[in-house]
């Protein structure tokens, strides 16, 4: 049984089939790449897997349980989290406060506890773990910086930090290195690899930049016009005429 099993996922927006009968198996410990031209339906696929949008048809299973139809917050509690293509964050809060706010899956909230501040130990644990996550991603120098004042690159990394705060089993990253310079891209690529190697988190990576995907993914799924075009090693994918066609047909292939 794979960690994530998507079966016949369909998402329709009016007359547009943004995701058309996509099936996907992601094994525990994988770093899976999902590529495809702009508008192929990659983000929509993330939206339906994470519960942000309801599926038109199909099912999603995570750790052997059906998660399709559940709310994103419940799915996050089950251990599946996604990041956003935009720089999503709590802009007025600091980096540390952002990560602390995203630890809801780890907290048993209760209004009396909150008002009377009973569980200090839990709060200390959360603080320590949040600092650990921030340090892991190299944001420790910015812990007390307001999120909105960070550079674009650091804001993207904060997006990953916020997702990690939920202690996921599987993290889905939507174009994590978009708009980054080569040095930042290499750094984030390295973080992603360490996430899997050191923290044992399975990763699904949507990426436009082929070079990044080819560098860290063992297996790549290609999506075009909402459909799965093919699946294979980076080697197989880049040499597949249909894939080259799909990319050349729409825009430049960035290899």
């Amino acid at each position, binding site marked *: 049984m794979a960690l994530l099993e998507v079966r016949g996922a369909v998402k329709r927006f009016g007359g547009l089939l943004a995701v058309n009968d996509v099936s996907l198996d992601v094994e525990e410990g994988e770093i899976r790449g999902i590529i495809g031209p702009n508008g192929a339906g990659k983000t929509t696929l993330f939206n339906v897997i994470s519960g942000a949008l309801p599926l038109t048809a199909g099912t999603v299973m995570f750790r052997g349980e059906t998660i399709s139809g559940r709310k994103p*917050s419940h799915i*996050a509690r089950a251990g599946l989290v996604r990041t956003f293509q935009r720089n*999503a*964050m709590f802009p007025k809060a600091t980096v540390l*406060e952002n990560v602390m706010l995203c630890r809801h899956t780890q*907290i048993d909230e209760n*209004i009396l506890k*909150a008002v009377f501040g009973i569980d200090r130990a839990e709060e200390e644990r959360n603080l320590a773990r949040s600092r650990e996550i921030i340090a892991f991603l190299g944001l420790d120098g910015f812990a007390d910086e307001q999120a909105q004042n960070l550079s674009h690159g650091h804001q993207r990394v904060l997006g990953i930090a916020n*997702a990690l705060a939920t202690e996921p089993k599987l993290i889905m990253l939507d174009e994590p290195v978009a708009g980054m310079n080569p040095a930042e891209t290499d750094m984030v690529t390295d973080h992603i690899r360490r996430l899997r190697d050191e923290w044992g988190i399975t990763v699904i990576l949507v990426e436009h930049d082929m070079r990044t995907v080819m560098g860290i993914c063992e297996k790549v799924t290609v999506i075009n016009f909402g459909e799965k075009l093919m699946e294979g090693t980076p080697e197989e994918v880049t040499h597949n005429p249909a894939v080259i066609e799909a990319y050349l047909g729409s825009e430049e292939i960035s290899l």
Partner: protein
Amino acid sequence: MRATAFGLVFLAIVAAAAVAAPYSVSYYQTEVLILFLINLILVCSYRILTTTGDWSLSHVVMMGVGAYTTAILSKYLELSILLTVPLSAVVAGLVGLVMVTPLIRTRGFGFFIASFALGEFVRLIWVKFRDPFGGPRGMIGIPNGEIGSIDFFMPVPYYFFVLIIAALCLSVMYRLDRSRIGKTFKAVYADEDLAESVGIDVPRYRALAFVTGTFFAGVAGSLLAHRLGAVDPKNFDINVMVYLIIWIVVGGSATFWGPILGLAVMTVVFEVTRPLLEWRPLLFGIILILFLVFMPGGLESLFTGLRERLVRRRGSEGEG
């Protein structure tokens, strides 16, 4: 460190002034102070809802639920004021829970309008059901309450009773605002999709804010009913709701102190413009519009802006 010391000194001054106040003013002014304290609970309770982005138009009606509950409990069941106040809060909270269940499906303008409609529905119940709500003319003869031999008919003892309740409610609301839950309310407002994606059950937190807010509105309503001795549906209509909105717009809602500042300023404005009579709503409308256009952050933004500038200057001095 210096900020907390300053805060404690400020708090001590406010407490001292609050205790001395009724002895240095007239009975009429003491009544104004009692109303101010009740409105203080109301406006702070309203801010809880607004931190999640839910600008309800039914909040004053929820205060009315507390007031009517108190009227019934103290008139027919002759319960002590020590029971009517907490029970009215619980009833208002429960009615809030019933109301928020459909409301949670709406957001923004939809929520605004739907909350108004539900509030009017509650008011309609008061108007239609003469028994026990007294119909359009409401209920009279609500006891002022007493504790032992202390009769709350006189304003000064009641002032102190309300002062204690207000201090209690505000400190709980303040702690809630500073707590994880309070921060989560603001996170829900700042980015709903992100909040939901990291495991925050957004509808549940919006409902929690709504119910907590209506609970404290119930306290305010109960205290009001005991003071006025009478309640009627007009006490809780949209005109009163507009005043509540003016207080919070004038003060601002970003910090805990904004609505308090707004209420204090507007209470003074209200009292000094009494001679204007029927022109006063016009004046208040103009104030509301001026603030919305020229100072959307409210008066508190003057202070937060000042603090930011001070911090920045200290920062650049440090670098230099």
